[in-house]
């Protein structure tokens, strides 16, 4: 069997590890709300105390056929397929911003259904493929 000294050290380490894991778990669960980089439209809907003067981030998919770009502003709808928020934005958009793609908008809520963004970030998904393949998939879908 192992010497007693080794056993002592192993148990000391196990106790230390367990305590620190529990500690970090508690810290993270207390901070859970703040770690979220953005809120989904559903989060906004059920949130009780919304500060309309504070900058927040909302995120989701740009709903298809809702993107409207005119001279003054860009209007689109962010959806998480349960709830939606309309977003208005003036400024430049990143390259990957498109209908049906993920988006994160930074700005202020006007009310629970309307959001005025002053910064738009594109959130891309985990799919990588060559363009030819994408065309084939799209043709098959038709």
């Amino acid at each position, binding site marked *: 069997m192992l010497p007693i000294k080794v056993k002592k*050290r192993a148990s000391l380490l196990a106790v230390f590890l367990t305590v620190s894991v529990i500690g970090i778990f508690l810290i993270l669960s207390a901070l859970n709300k703040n770690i*979220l980089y953005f*809120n989904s439209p559903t989060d906004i809907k059920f949130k009780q105390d919304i500060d309309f003067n504070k900058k927040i981030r909302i995120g989701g998919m740009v709903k298809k056929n809702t993107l409207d770009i005119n001279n003054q502003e860009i209007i689109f709808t962010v959806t998480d397929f349960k709830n939606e928020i309309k977003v208005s934005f003036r400024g430049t958009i*990143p*390259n990957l*911003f498109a209908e049906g793609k993920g988006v994160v908008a930074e700005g202020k809520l006007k009310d629970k259904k309307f959001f005025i963004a002053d910064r738009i*970030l*594109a959130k891309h998904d985990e*799919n990588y493929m060559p363009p030819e393949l994408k065309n084939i998939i799209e043709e098959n879908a038709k």
Partner: protein
Amino acid sequence: MFSLFYNSNIFIWIERIIKFINSIFFIFLLIGLSFALIFSPPDYLQGDSVRIMYVHVPAAWIGLSSFSLIALLSILHFIFKIKNLPLITKSVAPIGLMFTCIAIVTGSIWGQPTWGTFWAWDARITSMVILALFYFILILTHKFISDENKANKIACVVAVLGSINIPIIKYSVEWWSTLHQPASIKITGTSTIHPSMLMPLLFMFFVLILYCALIFLMKYKTEIIRIKKKNLKRYD
């Protein structure tokens, strides 16, 4: 079992392995880079900026796996007091720090054209910065604490604490909503990355691992020489 490490033949072996890696490394690097930068297809959405992935992803993997290795070896050293394990962790730490920094910097450069920002305080990126800080503390411990036993003990505590961060980094994209996209390459289940891009990625990972081995062996050799010069009678 560990006689290989104690034997002074180890110098000859290290020299041989370094020479061997040196002879193949640049050829492999050229092949890997030409596949990553020229022969692999652009992405359907991101175009050519996807090529940053071939450095970013392997660098992040190496950053994570070296810390896991350091944590594992530190625990083994703490429990069984195997004398040369601290030398290994000491040699791995700078490599891990370098690749973690590479992952953060390339990710930031990649973020600008795709997301539209260099920096975001989302869970994945922040936890990666914390990993870099842990590496930094590890290296500083060995630099500034001259009593070796003390330094090894403190480094062990740092490594164990830092190892809790590893699963947090891995699962941060699933537990919380982040700007960073979820993992494309899964150990179980199908990867969402096309094989024509996956192969160069894995090859680049292999090339960077070779580079790590090279740096590690050089550093490990210096560490052993340093110990021998100190006349601590650890290798007889």
